[in-house]
């Protein structure tokens, strides 16, 4: 009987093999491989988060984060920074005339001067920024309104800029392609800022402002390239300057022929669109003197502005910022405070967990698992 039933089953199994269909049911009636993977028995590390083992981590994080935070905070506080708002929207402010009498079609820039005092001297390299607020460089229409291959020196794109540049793609009058095309290039910040030190002896000396080194090295050397040609004006012959520009792109920096065309650093800096509507961009660098005197001694200074850039229409503001730099950048207390906060919270939680661990976990460990 046993033999007979066994045989019957064998046949059963064989038949079902051919008759059962469907994706998953393949290759049956063989003994499954007894491998660790197939039997879900791969050797494994099985950690669990308990108060006991998280506790030290919390203390460690707290003990690491708080000093870092304090260090960051102190570093940030040691940075010298001064912000001069020269928008001139308020009557009586130095640039009010320029601001209110702004017209697009002037050949002579409106000049205004702003005086300010540095109470403390600035040491080391000093970085000069211009800042704009309420300026949406991150607006989608604006961000995409550029042609990266044109900026990379592609001749074809120079002649025929990308559609993304509309409506700043071709000049409405001459119908020639605009180089550089797009809204970003068209709205290049064109105030000229100069800085003068009013020395106590009454002399006024210009502070030397370095134009180079303000853009990313990779941008200047790889991402932005002039079209190939001996003479830049020849290369850009069939193109039109952007509508808002006073000078064509190959004459942006008359003083330095290497700083013209698409590789002009002011231009490159502007082309890197800011993340937020209030932003600053690096304008000039005041290198520290070779002699060990202070870069910017305390005292009275004059900022001379060639006021070309209108911001009043969108309630924007313009600022000039002078700042020293540490290894962690400019003045920003946020990171230090955040580190101290998170570190303290971790430390505090560590203490709470210690209490809980003592009170509850020992109880749980002694309790029996109910069946």
């Amino acid at each position, binding site marked *: 009987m046993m033999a007979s039933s066994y045989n019957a089953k064998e046949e059963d199994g064989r*038949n079902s093999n051919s008759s059962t269909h469907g994706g998953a049911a393949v290759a049956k009636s063989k003994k499954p491989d007894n491998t660790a993977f197939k039997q*879900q028995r791969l050797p494994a590390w099985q950690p669990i988060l308990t108060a006991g083992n998280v506790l030290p981590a919390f203390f460690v994080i707290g003990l690491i984060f708080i000093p870092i935070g304090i260090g960051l905070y102190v570093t940030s506080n040691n940075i010298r920074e001064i912000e001069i708002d020269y928008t001139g929207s308020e009557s009586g402010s130095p640039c009010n005339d320029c601001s209110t009498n702004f017209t697009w079609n002037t050949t002579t820039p409106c000049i205004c001067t702003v005086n300010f005092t540095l109470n403390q001297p600035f040491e080391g390299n000093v970085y000069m920024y211009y800042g704009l607020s309420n300026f949406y460089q991150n607006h989608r229409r604006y961000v995409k309104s550029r042609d990266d291959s044109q900026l990379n020196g592609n001749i074809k794109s120079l002649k025929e800029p990308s559609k993304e540049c509309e409506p700043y793609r071709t000049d409405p009058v001459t119908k020639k392609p605009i180089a550089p095309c797009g809204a970003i290039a068209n709205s290049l910040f064109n105030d000229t800022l100069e800085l003068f030190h009013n020395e106590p002896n009454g002399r006024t000396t210009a502070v030397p402002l370095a134009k180079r080194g303000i853009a990313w090295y990779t941008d200047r050397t790889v991402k932005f390239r002039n079209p190939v040609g001996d003479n830049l004006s020849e290369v850009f012959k069939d193109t039109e300057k952007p509508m808002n520009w006073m000078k064509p792109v190959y004459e942006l920096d008359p003083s330095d022929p290497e700083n013209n065309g698409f590789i002009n650093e002011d231009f490159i800096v502007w082309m890197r669109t800011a993340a937020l509507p209030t932003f600053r961009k*690096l304008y000039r660098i005041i290198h520290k003197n070779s002699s060990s005197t202070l870069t910017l001694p305390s005292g009275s200074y004059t900022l001379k502005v060639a006021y070309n850039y209108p911001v009043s229409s969108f309630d924007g503001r313009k600022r000039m910022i002078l700042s020293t730099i540490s290894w962690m950048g400019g003045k920003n207390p946020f990171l230090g405070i955040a580190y101290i906060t998170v570190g303290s919270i971790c430390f505090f939680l560590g203490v709470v967990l210690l209490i809980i661990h003592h009170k509850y976990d020992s109880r749980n460990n002694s309790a029996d698992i109910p069946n």
Partner: protein
Amino acid sequence: MGMDFSTLRTLINRYCAGEENCVDTRTVYIGHKQPPPGTEAFIQQRFPDNRIVSSKYTFWNFIPKNMFEQFRRVANFYFLIIFLVQLIIDTPTSPITSGLPLFFVIIVTAIKQGYEDWLRHKADNSVNKCPVHVVEHGKVVRKQSRKLRVGDVVFVEEDEVFPCDLILLSSSRDDGTCYVTTASLDGESSHKTYHAVQDTKAYKTEEEVNCIHATIDCEQPQPDLYKFRGNINIYMGSEPVSRSLASQNLLLRGATLKNTQYIYGVAIYTGMETKMALNYQSKSQKRSAVEKSMNAYLVVYLCILISKAIINTAMKYVWQADPNRDEPFYNGKTETERQRHVLIRAFTDFLAFMVLFNYIIPVSMYVTVEMQKFLGSYFIMWDDEMFDEELRERAVVNTSDLNEELGQVEYVFTDKTGTLTENNMEFIECCVDGNVYVPHVICNGQVMPGASGIDMIDTSPGPDAREREELFFRALCLCHTVQVKEEETVDGIKHGIHQGKSSSFYISSSPDEVALVEGMKRLGFTYLRLKDGHMEILNREDEIERFELLEVLTFDSVRRRMSVIVRSSKGELYLFCKGADSSIFPRVISGKVEQVKARVERNAVEGLRTLCVAYRPLSTEQYEQVCHLLTRAKLEFQDQDKLVAEAYDLIERDLILLGATAVEDRLQEKAADTIESLHKAGMKVWVLTGDKMETAAATCYASKLFRRSTQILELTTKRTEEQSLHDVLFELSRTVLRHYGAMPRDTSSGLSGEYTDYGLIIDGATLSAVMRPSQEDSNSGNYKEIFLEICRNCSAVLCCRMAPLQKAQIVKMIKASKEHPITLAIGDGANDVSMILEAHVGIGIMGKEGRQAVRNSDYAIPKFKHLKKMLLVHGHYYYIRISELVQYFFYKNVCFIFPQFLYQFFCGFSQQPLYDTAYLTLYNISFTSLPILLYSLMEQHINMEILKKEPSLYRDIAKNSLLTWPIFIYWTVLGVYDAIVMFFGAYFLFDNTTFTSNGQMFGNWTFGTLVFTVLVFTVTFKLALDTHYWTWINHFVIWGSLVFFVVFSLLWGGIIWPFLNYQRMYYVFMQMLSSGPAWLSIILLITASLLPDVVKKVFWRSLWPTTTEQIQTKRRCLASEPSTIFMLSQTSSRISF
């Protein structure tokens, strides 16, 4: 009479010619020969050819049809719409971001389906082209199978498969029978006998067959394998002869001819109309509870998405009211933009926001879930512990959609025979008029009365008793449908049975019958074979007795008995009947009813399966009457079943009781342990059986379904006869409710195990009374409620005397009750199929009663004991895994998209994306997809062994507890929190200052990259924190995908990409990494993002630990302890009271 009907029907057919639908019968002309003129006109109906088409597509329609089917899925359609919107309007992200993933998914699916269809085409072709033999003009001709037409006469040889549904005309056997195995159809490997019509069985050569002049009227094809009605009209001479045809004349496509040299048959159903093809229709789709919650979450996220888009659109227009904001001098619009109507602009803005935020519902989630289910199901098939050495079978997964549902089961409905028990019948004893015979005390054919001190035993059987005893044995030898299967040796049937068991054995669809015939053999009466309509028995004196088999009144589950009518060599006519006690006793007019009844009840209590045997001597007149009744019933077309049942009812009466038999069905190995585990896991186990109450109850006690402490509530016919159903129900519900009212119900009290539990026994008749829809009585609607209330409070319920359909009804009733519990049905036989299909999860056992249950199930396992691992381990894991998968997917996409939403407030609602296109596209595809997929395949929060040892852990995940709304909200809030931390962390870092040491500034893409870097690390670490099972694969994938992200970012920003119209990411990532504060802020933000989740986990674990967490904490010490539960395996199947 029958002739008239058929003429009428032909007339109707003619009337409706051309409109196939209203033809409910078909007329087949055998050999395409016209009937003799005058009878009826020759109308050729059009039938399909014998081509089997299981493929879905052709070469031409594959692309349109497959695309249509794929885009019918809501998710795919949604992404297609998003993609089209991106193509049409000016959107923030390029169409590639959503097009690429979508088309990847679509193409992979299309390739998979195309390949499967190609395989089907190949299979179809090989089937359709295989040669068949057809009789044409008196010769056997080879044809391709697909060219077979209805009406062709087909010649089939031994071991060949029937190419279409055939009516048997004649066979090589003289009696016109043939043997067939339908194993590939319903899995029953036994040999079934099919009969040719009397009038055609003599035509045995192709020439003779060619002379048959007949038509067949039969019903149009229907899928029921066991139902067939038809008529054959044979024109011999002048007068046509009409014979009825039934399923025993119909050879089904797919079945195999056995033990018969050849047959001739006429094709009546071909191609897609064969019963096999009609049975291939797909089953209804079952959806798991997880899928339902997933869809609910999707709706929530869709609402979030739409409201985000609406909020931003509205804000945009409020903000833009000032024209200097809308279009400042530095940022002009094109002329076409300016001229667009404001409503169109608003609408496109809305769509653009939708596109920008659409990643919150990721395509990849569907792909990942599908892959998880498909790949995950392999672990079930691979499971070594679910492999049965004896059957050489492993678990089978028929659908992988329900893996996680295995972890959610609340009600288990199990069959008894073959599921709880082995269905390996062993003849224990028989009792003839109170004399008990036990086979194993027989020596050399000497019958010894039972040795145990049973007071009923008549110790001195007189000659009269001896005669009745032999009659009883003969009855059992004759009243069955057992076949003798001979092994190889053709003439060795007798020889084989004499010499050894191995060369020949009995086969039957019912193991009980085999056990009985085997038992008889041991008691001295050996059934030899059925030859030429005579059954041969070898009696104790080694003489062959021949009985002519006149009629077989086959077994059915309604009558619960079967009979044979035989004529002995002396010419005496007998009707032998065997069946369940309840169906025999009412029909008995004489015999020692009391003694037998007592013995039967005693045996039933011991858990044995009992059958009663009775006979009725028939006079010749009576026999003729019987024949008349049967032929009339069988000729009938319309209500044949009913008439046959009535005829049987008339024939099987006035019986004389001979005795009873007892057969033991052993409990399956570890059945009790499994049931106990299921109970501990909080599942309610219901046993649904057709058996009688006492037997079933005994099995229930043996399998620990009922324990000694269980208070049994009975809801049976016996009780409802005494009291009204109404009173019984109310009394029971009061008993149950009083208990629960007195004890405050603690939801987790399942662990205490101290309260008395209740077990309910209900029988089929009472159940149908309870479930009967209210007619005159408005109260009866309440019965169902009360009954459900009682059932809810019972840990175990036994339903006995159930018809197959009632099993499905019960499952349906529980499914529809107000908690909507998840049900699981497990069974092995064809009678369990309805319940397997009805339950949320259907599990088939690879038992002896064919493969129908396995084929219709969602999962199939070799033995009942494997259910424990299936539910407690696999089900638990799959549920944990998939719930984390679903929650995590939504979480990581909230983290991903919410910063983009916040960014809109700082970029003038201009739909400026925060992240670069490559990041948007690859976030879900490659940066964060593999760790969660691997997690959802490998995670084991607790070791397998502990899950098996502690079934109560199953309660921790009951009721979809990991996908409840609070948990979903927790994950979403966590995602929003992380997004806020990441976004504002970066915001304050970028706020109007520099963080490089050379004073240079970063732009918006650095901002986005910083957020994105923190994002990728945070969501990956979050998953790492949730992972409890770190294999090398997890390490590889988690750290690997982070490394991949970094490498990709370096590469993506490392070169000027040709063919790309923007170079916005050039050196952005490197420049960011060159800044110290960027590193510091990444570390800080990751820490701050993960902190709340860690704190929540640790606090909850310490203050309000779940059972799972307690056991996780204590895992190591537990693993080394021997478990008490584990040792509680059953040692003996036999139970004594």
